[in-house]
Structure formats: structure tokens, C-alpha cells
């Protein structure tokens, strides 16, 4: 029975690759209670699950390729943290033969409005770092692998079936575009831009420095959610514009999402000079008139004054109309009830009550 149990575990276990811990980091980090309490009272876990890490996109990167500041074991308390522009000495870029690095995209991010250093304090730390948006994604074990006939053909030259499967998955995932759904993109942007305290901190800081922020900066998420684009996206519709569809360039999307610029920057897709082209990505007939339409509409005073006034007038008209009509109905009910109309299923006539005005139905 025990042997059967062990046998049953084998396929499960083999579904996960094994993490090669050549640097012996797991000596300590394999323990689930490898934690500490920060000065703010938060629990930080340093537990590494090898069977999980072994199925992530970074599975082939040894720990110290990123944690370069670890020079000895046991190591000293970490202060620097991982920078994502570090060169991986264990992974070569197959195109150039040089050590692999995220430096190109990292530099694009550093030049963007979101750019910041790894270790910063104060208001700068509100800005997102790489790991704010990017986790270390786990491969889906149920993800379709290459068909048998593809493996059969590839291994003729590449010999190693494991390599062929991994290469296929690596390439096909990127062809399939595994980017976030529109609703997830909005949610991600909203995690900062809808944080009222964070937004206020930046408004105050900009005011102090005499910097100009976009008119929609404090209401970017709220106004987007109230727009048609936002409503449809939040309902799961895939083709309505999300934040990145307008604030990043479609031509070089994957780089552009890392170099978001403020709308006053002439290189921003939502800069006054670029708006028509940006709108034309979806609205092919868009012209300069169209580009004037507000994609973040609100009726807030100070933002949409015209709409604010129009909405106020609409409210007044609506309230007067409803009160007037309900009042009319009430006085009619009172008058006709008093005159002898019955609230009952009709049997030829409705005049079945005694009128208070002295004129009743004869029969």
C-alpha cells in the first residue's frame, strides 16, 4: 500500500523541474519560517519554494546573478536589493552572445515619468519599480506543449527533448501575446493612480516645486471608469481603449509601455500634436475636431464646467418633472376617488363608490 502511495506521487513530483541550488542558498531559505519582522511591524518572508521557483521564467538564473551583493555565506543583512538591469553571467543572449540583461527596457523605464532608482526614499518611492508590475511568472503546467510531430522533427538536430519543449513554450508564449487583459491593465494603473493619498502627495510636491501636472492627474482613474472606454473595459470587453492604448505607442508597444510620458511631453501619444494619430488607432476617421473630445469626461467643477452646469440644469428639470407628474397623479387620484371611482377589477364600470360630491351611479 505504501509502495502504491509512493508510486502515485512520482508523476506529480515529475511535473515540476528541480531547482539546481549550486550556490547552496536553500541551506537556509528552504525553511518556511525564514522570516523577520520589519521596523514597521510587517512580516517579511525569505522562504524560497524550490519546486515553484523551478517553474518560473527565471528558473535558469542562479540566485547570485541577481543578488550580486551576496559575497559570503551566511550573508550580511541585505540593503541594496535586486536591480533589474543587472547582467546575468549565467545566461547568454542568444542573439548577441553577450550576458543577458534587461538593461535596454530598464533604461527606457528610467527615462519615463515613472522612472526611479532601486533604492529611494520619500515621495520617489511612490513610483513603481520593475517588480511593482512584473512578478516572476510561473509557467502554467497545463500549457500546451509542442505537438509530437514538432518534437520529433526538432530533436533530429537539437537532440535534447527538454530543450525543444522549453524553447517552443518560450517562443510560442511571446507570439501568443501574454500581456495583461485590458481590465487588469486598468487595475494595475489604478493601484497607484487611484490611491488618493499617493495622488495628493504628488500634487502637493508638484505645487511646492512649481511643476505642472496634467489636469486629469487627480481624477484619471475615476474619469476613465466613467467613460465608455472604462465602463466597457471593466465589464470585460476586450476592444475598448485601456490606459496603455492611449498613453503608450502602439507601434512599439512593449517598449513604449515602459516609457510613459506626461501629456505635455511632445513625445507622448496623448500630447496635443499626437492625439489625432493616437485616436486614429481605433477611430479611423478621427480628425482635429475629434481629438478635442475629452476621453476622461467628468462633470466636476473645475474640470468639466460645461458638463457640470448642464448636469445641474438636467437635475433641476428632472426633479421638477417628476415632482410635477407625481403631484398631478396624486391630485387626480384624490379627485376621482372623492368622486366615487373604485379601485377594483372592472365589471362594466368603475363608478361603484359613493361620491362625496353628491352624484352617484343610479344602479
Amino acid at each position, binding site marked *: 500500500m505504501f509502495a502504491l502511495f509512493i508510486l502515485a506521487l512520482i508523476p506529480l513530483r515529475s511535473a515540476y523541474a528541480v531547482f539546481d541550488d549550486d550556490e547552496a542558498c536553500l541551506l537556509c531559505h528552504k525553511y518556511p519560517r525564514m522570516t523577520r519582522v520589519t521596523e514597521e511591524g510587517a512580516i517579511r518572508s525569505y522562504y524560497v519554494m524550490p519546486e515553484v521557483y523551478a517553474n518560473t521564467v527565471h528558473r535558469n538564473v542562479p540566485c547570485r546573478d541577481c543578488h550580486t551583493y551576496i559575497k559570503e555565506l551566511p550573508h550580511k543583512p541585505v540593503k541594496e536589493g535586486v536591480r533589474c538591469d543587472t547582467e546575468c553571467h549565467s545566461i547568454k543572449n542568444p542573439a548577441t552572445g553577450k550576458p543577458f540583461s534587461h538593461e535596454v527596457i530598464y533604461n527606457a523605464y528610467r527615462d519615463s515619468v515613472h522612472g526611479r532608482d532601486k533604492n529611494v526614499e520619500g515621495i520617489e518611492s511612490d513610483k513603481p519599480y520593475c517588480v511593482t508590475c512584473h512578478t516572476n511568472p510561473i509557467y502554467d503546467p497545463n500549457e500546451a506543449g509542442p505537438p509530437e510531430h514538432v518534437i520529433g522533427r526538432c530533436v533530429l538536430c537539437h537532440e535534447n527533448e527538454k530543450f525543444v519543449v522549453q524553447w517552443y513554450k518560450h517562443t510560442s508564449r511571446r507570439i501568443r501575446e501574454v500581456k495583461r487583459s485590458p481590465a487588469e491593465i486598468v487595475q494595475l494603473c489604478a493601484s497607484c493612480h487611484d490611491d488618493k493619498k499617493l495622488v495628493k502627495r504628488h500634487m502637493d510636491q508638484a505645487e511646492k516645486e512649481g511643476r505642472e501636472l496634467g489636469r486629469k492627474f487627480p481624477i484619471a482613474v475615476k474619469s476613465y471608469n466613467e467613460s465608455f472606454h472604462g465602463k466597457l473595459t471593466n465589464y470585460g470587453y476586450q476592444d475598448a481603449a485601456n490606459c496603455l492604448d492611449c498613453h503608450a505607442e502602439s507601434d512599439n508597444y512593449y517598449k513604449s509601455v515602459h516609457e510613459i510620458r506626461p501629456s505635455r511631453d511632445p513625445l507622448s501619444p496623448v500630447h496635443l500634436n499626437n492625439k489625432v494619430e493616437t485616436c486614429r488607432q481605433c477611430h479611423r476617421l478621427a480628425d482635429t475636431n475629434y481629438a478635442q*473630445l475629452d476621453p476622461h469626461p467628468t462633470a466636476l467643477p473645475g474640470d468639466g464646467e460645461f458638463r457640470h452646469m448642464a448636469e445641474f440644469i438636467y437635475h433641476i428639470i428632472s426633479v421638477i418633472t417628476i415632482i410635477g407628474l*407625481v403631484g398631478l397623479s396624486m391630485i387626480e387620484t384624490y379627485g376621482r376617488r372623492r368622486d366615487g371611482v373604485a379601485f377594483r377589477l372592472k365589471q362594466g364600470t368603475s363608478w361603484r363608490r359613493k361620491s362625496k360630491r353628491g*352624484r352617484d351611479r343610479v344602479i
Partner: protein
Amino acid sequence: MKLSEEARDVLETSMRQNKVSEKDRNEIENLIVTLPDDRVLLYKNVVSNPIGDLERYSIHIRLQHMLTFVTFLTLAFTGLPILFFNAFWAEPFNSFLGGIEITRIIHRTIAVIMIFTMIYHILTITLGTLVRKKVGKFDIRRTMIPLKKDVYDFRDDILYFAGMRDQRPVMDKFMYKQKIHYFAAAFGNTVMIVSGSSFLFPEIWASILPEAYAAYFQELMRLSHPHEALLALLVIAFWHWYNVHLAPGRFPMQWTFLSGKITREHQIEEHFLEYLRNLVEVPEERQLLRDMLESREFVVESEALLNDLLATDEEGGR
């Protein structure tokens, strides 16, 4: 019953337009004289079929009402979850209707049917008017066109309900309430079509409008579409359904929208001028009314009144 000047004019116009014979004219006049002066007694005592007694709406109008009824509610149900996207019920309700991929298609398809209904209606009333004009039976008072009289009718009706007047005003085929409702619906439909098209074809609207107004127009349309829809829904819920379902005397339902007929008591109470036309155009109605009057006690009073009148005339003649 002594007819008012306007009622007399409506009756004379109808008899002239229908080329009523002298015999029929006498019959109508005699019947009117026998009616009690107190119209309340008349509409309280006539016999009515709840399904309807007198023709009011043609099959075209009933069909248009049915199309409007179905399209309006469907448009409201598919549009409300978009307007109140934050409400707890919005997402489940939208999913129940098929999700945003489906509801947006339903909304637009039904909108096209609604526009078709409006065109169908405009054609119906335009052609109907032309035909009536051609055969010499057009009377503007019998249409939905608002007249000064409607303002007075509105005032007098309120006074009656408040107990400050003895009779409800003598109103025509379409009374002030129906005219308000009709034009509110016509205005609402127009606003919804224009604003809806500005969502569907924003580039076209922006390109045909002057640069200074394009953005304001779109803002106004974004505002008008949901507000007008909500206002229409509230008016339908609080007023139209009150008038046709809940109002005392109309409960639980008027069948007019299906049968095309109005009850006799309703016609006499709220559309007496049209009832006078019915007496001209429907000879059977005269006989039915006469039979009904004879079966009621107040006829005796009216006959006595008739005799008094005749006697007065004779004395005057001498």
C-alpha cells in the same frame, strides 16, 4: 344638455364633414337635448365594456405602441447596467442579459427598431393627415397638436380634482396629459437617437460640427443620453403606468393599446368632444345611448327639461 360653444362647433364641423342627412341631424340634436346637463351623471351611468366600446387607435398606432413598449424597455434594461456600472446589481444584471458583448449588440439592434418605429409613426400620421385633408375630414382639434384650449383644460381639470369646479373640462380626442406625454416621448426619442448616434459615430459628428462646438456637443450628448433615458423611465413608471394601470377607474388596465377601443364612460368623461363625433360617425352609438338613457332615472328629469325647453320655445314663438 346645452352644448358649450366649442362643443357645438365640434359637432357642427363633424356633421358638415360627414355630410350628415337632415334626418340624422335631427336624431343627433334630439339625442343631445335628452342628455343630462350634468355630464358626471352621464358618464357614471352609461354601460361600458372594459375591453372598449368606441374606436380610438388604428392597428398602425397599436403596433407602433407595442414596438415602442418593447424597444423602450429592452433599451432601458440593456442600458441601465452601463449607466449604473458601480451599482451592486449592474454586473450580475448585465451578465444575466448575456454580458457586455451581447448587450451592446442587443442595445444597438433594438435602437434601430426604435428608429424604424418612429419613422413608421411619422409616415402614419403624415399620410393619415393627407388622406383626411383630401376627403375633407381633417380637424386640427382632433390631433395631437397643442392648442391654447389645452392650457385651460389643464387648469380646469386641476380645479375639478381639487373640488373647486363642478365639471371636468370638455376635452377633445387627445387631452392635455396625452399631448404632454406624446411630445415628451417625441422629444426624448429624438434626443436618444441623436445622442446614441454620437456614441456610435463620434468621428462623423465631430467632423460635421464647427470646431468650437464639437467637444461641447459630445459632452452634452454623453450627458443627455443617460439623463433622458432615466427621465423617460421615471415618467413611464410614475406617470404613464399610473394613468393606464393605477389611476382609479383605469385599474387594473386599459385595453385600448390592444383592442384599439376606449370605453364609453372614459370617452364621455375625458374626451367628450370626440364622443360627440362618435354620435355623428357611429349611428349605432346613438341608439345604444338612447336605450341606456331610457333605462336610467335621470332621463325622466331630462325629458322634463326637454318639455320645459320646448314649452319655452313655443312661448317665445308666440
